[in-house]
């Protein structure tokens, strides 16, 4: 890759990135703004109506519920759509996912690695912002584990006719390396750093300020050493990190909420304005699925072209905190459909916003609100 900087500059130009614009683009944007304003007004009025409705429902059902031993009768949305948990119009919470579990730290039981136990791989450069990291891969080719840990006793860039540049400890990003026992056949590493853009006062004088060094000499903590070919510009100095062994990446546990199954039930027709439907969340597993980290959901109404609705809310987790094994909970949903939507058949897509989104969709006929 001779000059990635130049290739990127050549690629990212006005000429290459040009996209045609429609002459009526400003009007399209203006219409979109108007549609959003209308939708926001609907959501606000729906939320207000829901609050008033909830107060009235509580006033009428609470005494009966108390008399009946605390069982709340499900409230019909439509004659056939009943639900267990009412809708709340609050914004979705920040997405949550299980914390990754780091791997156990490497053991430190084996004797220190000797140079003849290691096969040295090619030096790989990683350039960014003037700082160049060079990683040297080290494979244990012996039949016994050996310990690769600590900072090498000496690391030096070498070139014929130039004095050695001996590395100082510590990298720019303080990546010291995770040392440990290196099993036979496994890989470890050493990272060194050079700087392409140091200030002139820090650069070494004469030929070495721009000279390219051709090899790297490394003396391990065990005292044995090896050389490898490496093109390094050490005119601005050389830094070395610690020796390390490859450790597996952290594992992320599955988000149990991703096991939920969603079924969307809509009325045959939805009237533009505010409409209701029901989503049933079922737990097919043998363990309860906690909703302590309350998920959000997305409802999206579209007919193949522009989406009429694309809203996100929080699930109402105030009443059901966990879904028991092999049970279901029916949630009331509301959707604010713009009153000027074109009547027709739409797809209502509903997604629970968890690690692996739980998604289901249903066809619905949207009819005019009757008011413009």
């Amino acid at each position, binding site marked *: *890759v001779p000059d*990635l*900087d130049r*290739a*990127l*500059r*050549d*690629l*990212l*130009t*006005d000429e*290459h*990135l*040009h*996209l045609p*614009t429609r002459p009526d*683009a*400003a009007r*399209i*944007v*203006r219409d*979109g*703004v108007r549609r*959003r*304003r209308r939708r*926001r007004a609907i959501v606000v009025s729906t939320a207000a109506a829901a609050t008033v409705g909830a107060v009235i429902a509580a006033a009428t059902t609470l005494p009966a519920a108390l008399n009946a031993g605390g069982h709340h009768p499900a409230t019909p949305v439509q004659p056939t759509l009943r639900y267990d948990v009412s809708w709340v119009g609050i914004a979705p919470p920040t*997405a949550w996912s299980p914390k990754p579990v780091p791997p156990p730290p490497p053991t430190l039981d084996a004797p220190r690695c000797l*140079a*003849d136990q*290691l*096969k*040295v*791989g*090619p030096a*790989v*450069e*990683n*350039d*960014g*912002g003037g*700082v160049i*990291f060079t990683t040297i891969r080290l*494979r244990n*080719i012996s039949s016994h584990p050996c310990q690769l840990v600590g900072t090498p006793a000496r690391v030096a860039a070498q070139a014929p006719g130039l004095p050695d540049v001996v590395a100082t400890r510590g990298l720019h*990003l303080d990546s010291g390396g995770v040392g440990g026992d290196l099993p036979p056949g496994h890989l470890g590493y050493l990272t060194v750093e050079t700087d392409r853009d140091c200030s002139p006062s820090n650069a070494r004088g004469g030929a070495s300020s721009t000279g390219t060094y051709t090899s790297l000499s490394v003396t391990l903590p065990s005292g*044995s*050493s*090896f*050389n*490898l*070919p490496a093109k390094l510009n050490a005119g601005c100095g050389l830094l070395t990190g610690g020796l390390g062994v490859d450790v597996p990446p952290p594992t992320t546990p599955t988000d149990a909420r991703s096991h939920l199954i969603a079924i969307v039930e809509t009325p045959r027709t939805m009237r533009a304005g505010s409409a209701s439907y029901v989503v049933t969340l079922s737990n097919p597993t043998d363990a309860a699925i906690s909703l302590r980290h309350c998920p959000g959901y997305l409802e999206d109404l579209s007919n193949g072209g522009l989406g009429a609705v694309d809203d996100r809310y929080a699930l109402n987790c105030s009443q059901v905190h966990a879904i028991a094994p092999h049970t279901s909970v029916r949630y009331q949903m509301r959707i604010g459909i713009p009153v000027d939507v074109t009547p027709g058949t739409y797809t209502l897509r509903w997604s629970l916003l968890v690690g*692996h*989104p739980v998604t289901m969709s249903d066809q619905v006929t949207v009819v005019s609100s009757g008011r413009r």
Partner: protein
Amino acid sequence: VDADAAAFDAFVRARLPALLRFAHALTGDPHTAADLVQDALERTGMRWDRIERQGDPEGYVRRAILNGRVSRWRKHRRETLVDCVPERVTSYEVPGRDDQLWQLLATLPPRQRAVLVLRYYEDLSEAQIADILGCAPGTVKSQSSKALAKLRVALSPPAPTTEEAPCPT
């Protein structure tokens, strides 16, 4: 209100081509770019009077485009996330460097791609990029470093069969 609407229209007409180019560089896809710009402009139009008073409406739209890009990527990452950049083409149909680089840019996570676009297309300094992305300059440096490293690895010629250097002395 009419004056605000006229000012917003004028802003859209004047800056739309540049905003589209910026979104195109970020996404690599003209349709996604147009969607992102439309979405960002609609959000801007909703509170135009306040944004215009703050004095940098274009900066606001660009941040909205960036945030929208990251947000969409998070939403769809399960479908698009790859562990490694695609294998390089080794037989016939070797693409031109530009095509290959353009496709490789699309495999970068959006913040890494954004850093490269802001650096190589917008010619911004690390501090300016950090300001736009809302992160530390060190993060910009490391994101840039990671992005370039991925591109270098993907673009570098195939390793020789004896890929490892001779045994140590």
